[in-house]
């Protein structure tokens, strides 16, 4: 099987879908002549031309809105945010147009499109450039939210996102674009709402997604050295969420730790805990813990950033706590 980087899997997904469906186009800053700020659209301008691979000025509200308007007319836009931090500029378009128009028009219109780009802290970019946006978007009915951590998942889920009839927020990771993995040559799609067990185990369920996945896997490895077997569940899609997979695992392990990028207050982590206590209260043998950013803005200084970020060591400490092995 070919080995690809995540950025190449993303490029291939876009390329195949653009070849399959003329209505699909890509729009964003530096996606064309520059081949993408992180090279996710390498070669696409050459292949499809400037009609379908469109460089925009720095106008996030403008191109998010153009994507929405075009989608309402039946096109299938892929809008790239150079990073999701800049999607904050377009938040109103996503919240009040993309998420609402199907409902507001009583079904006269849909907004079948993808907003994609890197999300969460990279390395030493400071507070405005280090934020995790799934927590904002997963709050909103009318949207779908996906976060990927392997080339296989990236390709299969992006193709699904492009074909979906709803607006999909597709979250990638600047730090993980070079992560390599097997990607089948033949076509495949991965449905939304299906978690993937990235490592099977019996003692503790570790729930994660996106940039949290490598942290959780490393922590599971450290825990294994202490004879604690962790089941690492990569949610992949946060809205819809695979409740069944979470609950099945928690019923088996009776313990859960959630590892993710983002702050503790009001985010996806708390939402998962709410579901677990609602659906598996009697199965729990320990409180469900979260390993995430400290509740602080991200500083530039490396030593401070490392203290705030979720680390395998912090995840291991949480795993020990829920297994009462301090």
């Amino acid at each position, binding site marked *: 099987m070919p080995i690809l980087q995540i950025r190449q899997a993303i490029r291939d997904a876009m390329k195949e879908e653009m070849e399959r469906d003329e209505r699909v186009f890509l729009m964003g800053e530096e996606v064309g002549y520059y081949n993408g700020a992180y090279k996710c659209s390498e070669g696409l301008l050459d292949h499809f031309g400037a009609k379908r691979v469109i460089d925009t000025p720095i106008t996030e509200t403008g191109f998010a809105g153009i994507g929405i308007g075009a989608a309402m007319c039946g096109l299938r836009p892929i809008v790239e945010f150079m990073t999701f931090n800049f999607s904050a500029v377009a938040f109103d378009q996503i919240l009040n147009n993309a998420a609402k128009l199907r409902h507001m028009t009583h079904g006269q219109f849909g907004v079948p499109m993808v907003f994609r780009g890197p999300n969460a802290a990279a390395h030493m970019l400071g507070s405005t450039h280090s934020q995790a946006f799934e927590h904002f978007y997963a709050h909103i009915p009318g949207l779908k939210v996906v976060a990927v951590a392997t080339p296989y998942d990236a390709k299969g889920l992006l193709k699904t996102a492009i074909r979906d009839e709803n607006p999909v927020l597709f979250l990638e990771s600047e730090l993980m674009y070079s992560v390599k993995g097997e990607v089948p040559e033949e076509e495949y799609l991965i449905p939304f709402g299906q978690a993937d067990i990235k490592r099977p185990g019996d003692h503790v369920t570790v729930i994660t997604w996106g940039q949290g996945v490598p942290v959780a896997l490393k922590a599971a490895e450290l825990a294994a050295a202490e004879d604690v077997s962790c089941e690492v569940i990569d949610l992949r899609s946060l809205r819809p969420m695979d409740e069944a997979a979470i609950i099945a695992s928690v019923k088996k392990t009776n313990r859960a730790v959630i590892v993710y990028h983002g702050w503790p207050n009001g985010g996806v982590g708390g939402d998962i805990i709410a579901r677990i206590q609602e659906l598996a209260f009697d199965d729990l043998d320990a409180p469900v813990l979260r390993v995430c950013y*400290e509740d602080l803005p991200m500083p530039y200084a490396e030593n401070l950033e490392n203290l705030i970020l979720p680390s395998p060591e912090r995840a291991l400490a949480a795993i020990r706590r829920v297994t009462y092995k301090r």
Partner: protein
Amino acid sequence: MTQSEAAPDAASDSTVDAAYEAKLRADYDGQSREDVLRDYREMLRIRRFEEAAARAYTRGKISGFLHLYIGQEAIAIATQQVMEPGDRVVSTYRTHGFAIALGSDPKACAAELFGKAAGLVGGVGGSMHFFDKERGLWGGYAIVGNHIPVAAGHAFASQYTGDGRVTLCFMGDGAVGIGPVHEGMTMAGIMKLPIVFVVENNQYSMGTPLKRTLPVEDITARAAGYGFASDRFHVTSVQETRRRLGEAVERARKDGKPTLVELITYRFRGHSMSDPAKYRQKEEVERWRLNDPLERTLMALKTIYQVPEAELDAMDETIVAEMDGAYEFADKAPVPAPEARFENVMAEGPYYGDSATTRPAGVE
């Protein structure tokens, strides 16, 4: 004006032909040797600071995004010269030049780049987030365009309190399309705020040349719609930039009329250190180099003012030593204490987070 015509009329190939020298003499007519030497020294300080930053980045001492000001130094120097005490500069992530020009300690600037406690903002901001309020540097903003309404707010406060201060708000050519620019300028026009908006048009928004970001290449064409005065020129010397920015500042201070100034300039490095700038030809860069204000000033000092080579070399050596010293200081300086991350989040004092989930042990 199109992209290819954008480089100012300069000597065709060799550095000093007769036409070039005649233009140079005209430009420096009436300028004293002392003033020109000062302008050169101040520009050179920025350039040497930036070159040292590039070296430190290459050695892995600086992380994140590093956007250099090489080629645009004259703008920061001229700005400093037209400011009165209390006036404010609000700028972008490409802002080391303003800090150095306004008198921020190069040691503190370098320490910020290194993420050290002695940095301009304690190491929490890095290259993209320089602030030095005491010296008039009010940022340091890294989300494109989001400082324009904020700068208008500073000018509003000046109008409100009658403090007589002027705000100079800088942005790139790539910023003028984004919403907050329009909104901030609309407010400034309606309220007749004491502000000068300066677009540093360095020909590129990351890898995108002007013709693909601007529907009309003359950015000052927008001034009419906001009721602003406007000015637009190539930055080839400090004195000309000083004179024309000075008029705009005067207009803001005396008449409460905003001005939109477009400064045509060039960045000689990539957008940031991670950009190899493959989107432009070497010839283009060379063409602009002939009008690099720093190089032109050096040429003027040599040909018009007959400043001996040795004097210029000595000046350069002093500056290089100052900047190398700043980076040595930064290298040796301690990183922020772990507790520093709890500071300045909330007004009340150290903040440990509102959630038991991540609150440090032992903190209520």
